[in-house]
């Protein structure tokens, strides 16, 4: 019994220490971002691996999610004779929720895990130590560009996801099921508000991008320098990112749209 209590105490202290390391790490990373102004090439290279290589999965997923929304929305709306509102349903779902959230989940799986694994592997193979001994700060040289690239890529990917999704809904609703094309767009434009919906969606994706960038780079940097440690860091990145994104989504939604 005392053993269990003791273990609980140790675990609590460990998580506190982890939280402290996390905060410290974020401060170091953020202070390293300034120096990237003189070396944009580092960020561009990371945008390639984090952003461009996530594009295919984002476009394909966005298209299918939009098409499913078109199909489901049509089937529900047609019962009320309100299938003209299909555009509103598709666009609002995507812009407010599914675009930022699903894109963030995919991004965590595709880019976040890769970031954590890459950084963890660099640590395990002493590349980070090697840099530090060459008087190059690994946080500035390795972490900060990756953090910034993930932070920039996420809102762009979420926007692509939503835009492709709206087009996917158009294909299913208008081209296949025969909803009036003019109504699809005009109802959408009438009901989707630039500030209330689009801006808030973008803000969500920016917050998610920050969270995933932070989690992924930290887990890689804090990984045990072994094969097992890197594997754990990768898993933790994906699991934690998913949980954090969904929790943040609820909080942000309550703040933006709720009247709690």
């Amino acid at each position, binding site marked *: 019994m005392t053993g269990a209590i003791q273990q609980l105490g140790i675990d609590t202290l460990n998580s506190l220490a982890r939280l402290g390391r996390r905060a410290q790490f974020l401060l170091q990373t953020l202070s390293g971002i300034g120096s990237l102004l003189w070396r944009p090439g580092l960020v561009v290279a990371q945008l390639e691996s984090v952003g461009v290589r996530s594009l295919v999965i984002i476009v394909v997923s966005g298209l299918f999610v939009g098409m499913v929304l078109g199909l489901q929305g049509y089937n529900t709306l047609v019962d009320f004779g309100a299938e003209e509102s299909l555009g509103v349903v598709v666009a609002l779902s995507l812009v407010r929720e599914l675009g930022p959230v699903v894109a963030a989940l995919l991004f965590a799986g595709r880019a976040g895990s890769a970031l954590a694994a890459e950084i963890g*592997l*660099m640590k395990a*193979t002493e*590349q980070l*130590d090697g840099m*530090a*001994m*060459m*008087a*190059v700060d690994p946080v500035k040289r390795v972490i900060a560009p990756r953090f910034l690239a993930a932070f920039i890529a996420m809102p762009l990917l979420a926007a692509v996801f939503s835009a492709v999704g709206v087009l996917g809904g158009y294909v299913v609703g208008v081209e296949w099921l025969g909803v009036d094309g003019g109504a699809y767009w005009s109802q959408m434009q009438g009901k989707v508000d630039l500030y209330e919906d689009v801006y808030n969606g973008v803000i969500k994706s920016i917050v998610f991008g920050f969270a995933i960038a932070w989690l992924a780079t930290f887990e890689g940097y804090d990984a045990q320098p072994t094969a097992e440690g890197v594997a754990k860091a990768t898993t933790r990145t994906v699991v934690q990112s998913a949980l954090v994104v969904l929790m943040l989504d609820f909080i942000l939604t309550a703040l933006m749209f709720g009247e709690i």
Partner: protein
Amino acid sequence: MTSTDDNLIEIRELRFAHGPRVIFDGIDLSVPRGKVTAIMGPSGTGKTTLLRLIGGQIAPDAGAIKVDGLDVTGLDNKGLYALRRRIGMLFQGGALLTDLNVYENVAFPLREHTDLNESLIRALVLIKLQSVGLRGAQMLMPSELSGGMARRVALARAIALDPMMVMYDEPFAGQDPISMGVLVKLIRELNDALGLTSIIVSHDVAEALAIADYVYMISNGRVVQGGPANELADSSSEWVRQFMGGLSDGPVPFHYPARDYAEELLER
């Protein structure tokens, strides 16, 4: 050997513990300038930790570490980084940056720390690669190199900024005889040709003794023996003789401490 000027590194009364495990329990150690000094001891004695302490990557619990007259423990980040520019280090696995090819790896410290133009960087990189015999491998990626080649590239990178000293972490571990011979030759030649000071951490007795001018033996957190390499063979310490001769039994027992053998066997 006692005057500070002759010694590049002076370590006094160094204590370091990793959690409950005491790794160094009051170590005194001097590394003379221009010489090759080997630090030897069994695995797990914290030889690598010693290099990290010298490089200021970790801080000791007590004691002083002076490198070229500078107290490493008292340096701020800026001072530490300035010092590290004058120190080359060869990690066990080479620690090459896996996303850059051989040429770019050697150019890395030059690009990070100097504003040299491309043609000058190219010349310097080619000189360094030529000195380790791998100029022909400049376009290969680290994953295409053998372990020995990776270490030679890392060596070229370590000397790219013409440091005052190079630290080698287990340079011979896991190498075939040929690359071992190549590395032994390189370390000695580079040390003499570039006027470096070299520190080698190793447990490969024959190779370390072949190139070292001075040897320190570390065991159980203490320096067991230190001095010129040629005096080591006739050491009075039984432990040193066991380590040097690679004997299976001696002061370091063959058996892990256990209960009485007969008693445990007869137990039900």
